[in-house]
C-alpha cells in the first residue's frame, strides 16, 4: 500500500513537471486538435467509402464499425500522451548513455521509463474517441451498464498496447537504433481502425497471432456490443497479462546485456 502511494505521488510529480514544460508550446494544442479532428474525419470518410455502396465489411453495421474507429482514436490518444513521449525516448537514453542515471535511481527503471513524461497533446484524441464511442453506442441502444462494463476490456487493450511498445523499446538495448521499429508498429496498428472481420483470412491470422491488433480494438468492441460472450474477456485478459509479464521479464533480461554507451 505504502509502495503504491509512493508511486502515485511520483506520477503526480512527474506529470506536473512535464506538463509545465509542455505548456511552453501552448499553440501546439490548436495544432494537435485540428490534427485529431482531421485524422478522425479522414478515418470516418475512409469507412464511409466501404459503406456507401451498401457493402457491410465483415457483416458489421455502420455504427458498430464506428465503435472500432472510436476505440482506435482513443488508443491513438493514449499513445500520444504516454507511449511516444516515454517509450520513444528509450532509444535516446541508450544511445547517449543516460540510461545509466535511470538505472541508478531507487525505483523500478521500467516504471520510470514508462511514466516519466506526460504529453497533453494526445488528449483531444482521447476526447474524440470517447465521443465517437458514446455516439455510436447511443445510436445502437447499448445499455449504460454494458458501456460501463466495457471499461474492463478497454483497460486490457491499453495494457496490451503498452506491453507491445515496451517489448519493442526493449530491443533497443541490442540494436540501439530502433526508433523506426516503433514507427513500423504504429503503421501495423493502423489496421485496428477497422473490424478484424473485414480483412481476408491471411490478414486475420497475422493480426491475431503475430501482431495482436485484434485485441486492441475489435475484441473490446465485440465485448461491449455483445457480439462476443464473456469468455472472450478472459482471453483478452490472458493476452494482456501475458504480454505485460513478458515485457517485465524481457526488460530484466535485456538489462543484463546493457553495456552503457558513455564509458
Amino acid at each position: 500500500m505504502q509502495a503504491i502511494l509512493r508511486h502515485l505521488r511520483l506520477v503526480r510529480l512527474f506529470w506536473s513537471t512535464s506538463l509545465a514544460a509542455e505548456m511552453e508550446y501552448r499553440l501546439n494544442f490548436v495544432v494537435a486538435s485540428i490534427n485529431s479532428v482531421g485524422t478522425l474525419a479522414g478515418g470516418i470518410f475512409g469507412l464511409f467509402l466501404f459503406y456507401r455502396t451498401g457493402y457491410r465489411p465483415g457483416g458489421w453495421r455502420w455504427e458498430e464499425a464506428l465503435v472500432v474507429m472510436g476505440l482506435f482514436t482513443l488508443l491513438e490518444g493514449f499513445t500520444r500522451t504516454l507511449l511516444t513521449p516515454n517509450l520513444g525516448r528509450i532509444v535516446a537514453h541508450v544511445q547517449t548513455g543516460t540510461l545509466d542515471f535511470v538505472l541508478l535511481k531507487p525505483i523500478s527503471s521500467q516504471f520510470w521509463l514508462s511514466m516519466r513524461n506526460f504529453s497533453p497533446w494526445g488528449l483531444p484524441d482521447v476526447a474524440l474517441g470517447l465521443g465517437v464511442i458514446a455516439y455510436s453506442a447511443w445510436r445502437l441502444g447499448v445499455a449504460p451498464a454494458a458501456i460501463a462494463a466495457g471499461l474492463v476490456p478497454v483497460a486490457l487493450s491499453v495494457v496490451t498496447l503498452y506491453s507491445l511498445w515496451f517489448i519493442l523499446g526493449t530491443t533497443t538495448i541490442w540494436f540501439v537504433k530502433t526508433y523506426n521499429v516503433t514507427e513500423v508498429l504504429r503503421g501495423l496498428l493502423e489496421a485496428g481502425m477497422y473490424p478484424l472481420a473485414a480483412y481476408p483470412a491471411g490478414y486475420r491470422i497475422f493480426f491475431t497471432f503475430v501482431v495482436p491488433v485484434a485485441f486492441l480494438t475489435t475484441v473490446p468492441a465485440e465485448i461491449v456490443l455483445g457480439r462476443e460472450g464473456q469468455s472472450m474477456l478472459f482471453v483478452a485478459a490472458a493476452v494482456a497479462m501475458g504480454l505485460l509479464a513478458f515485457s517485465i521479464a524481457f526488460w530484466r533480461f535485456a538489462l543484463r546485456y546493457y553495456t552503457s554507451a558513455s564509458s
Partner: protein
Amino acid sequence: MTRIITRLSRTRRIASTLLSVWYAYMLEYRAEIFLWAMVGLLPLILMGLWMQAAASGATAFSPGDFARYFFAVFLARQFTAVWVIYDFEYDVVDGRLSPYLLQPIDPVWRYMAGHAAERLTRLPLLVGFSLAFFWLFPEARWLPAVGDVLLCALALALAFLLRFAIQYSVAMLAFWIERVSEIEKFWFLLFFFFSGTIAPLDLYPPAVRDAAMYTPFPYFAYFPAQLLTGRPAPIALGFVVMLGWLAFFFVVNRVLWRRGLKQHSGMGA
C-alpha cells in the same frame, strides 16, 4: 564556348561528388531505410480490406485490380517520400545552415542529392519487396506495358520534384517559426483524403474525385498508380496540373528563400 564547357564539367563534378557522398551515407543506414520503407504499410492494409470487399462483389473492381492498384500506390510512395523539412528545420534551429551558406553552392542541392541517393539505396529493397508481394498475391501478377512504365516513371519524377518543392517551401518558414515540421502534419490530413491512398479515387463520389484532380494530392498515389496499371487517367490534365503547381511552388520557394535569408540570424553559429 570554353566557359560553358568548364561550367558544365564543374556542375557534373559537384553533382557526382554530392551523390556519391550521400550514397555512401545512406548505405550506412540501409537497415533504417528498410524500416522506413516498411512504415508506408497503410496501402497494404487497405488493400486487404478492399480485396475482401471485391471478393463479395461489392465493387466493380476485382481483387486482383485492387492488389495491383495498392501495390502501385506503395511503390509511388517509395519514390515520392520527402523529408527535407525535418533536415532543414534542424539545420536552421541548430545553426548548421550558416556554414552551408558560405559555400558557393545553394544548400538545396545538398538536400536534393540526399534524397536522390536514398532513392538508389531503396531500389534493391523494392525489387525484393515486389518479388515477395507477387509470390504472396498471385492474383496481382501482371506485366505492365513498356509505354505505361515510362509514362509512370515520368509522372513519378515530376511528382517527386513537386513534393520536394512543396515541402521545401513550407520548410522556408523555419526562418520565422521554430517548429515548422508541425505544419507538415496538416499536409498528411489532406493527403489521405485526396491522394487515393485509402481507396482508388474511382470509388469516391464523382464530384470529389474531379475536384481532387486539380489539387496536388492525387499525383503522389492515384495518378501514377492508374498509369502503371494501365487504367484510365486524365493524362494530359494530370501533367498540366503538376507542372502548374510545380511552377507555383518554385516561385513561392525562391521568394521565401530570399526573404528568409535576410531575416536569418544564424543561431548557434
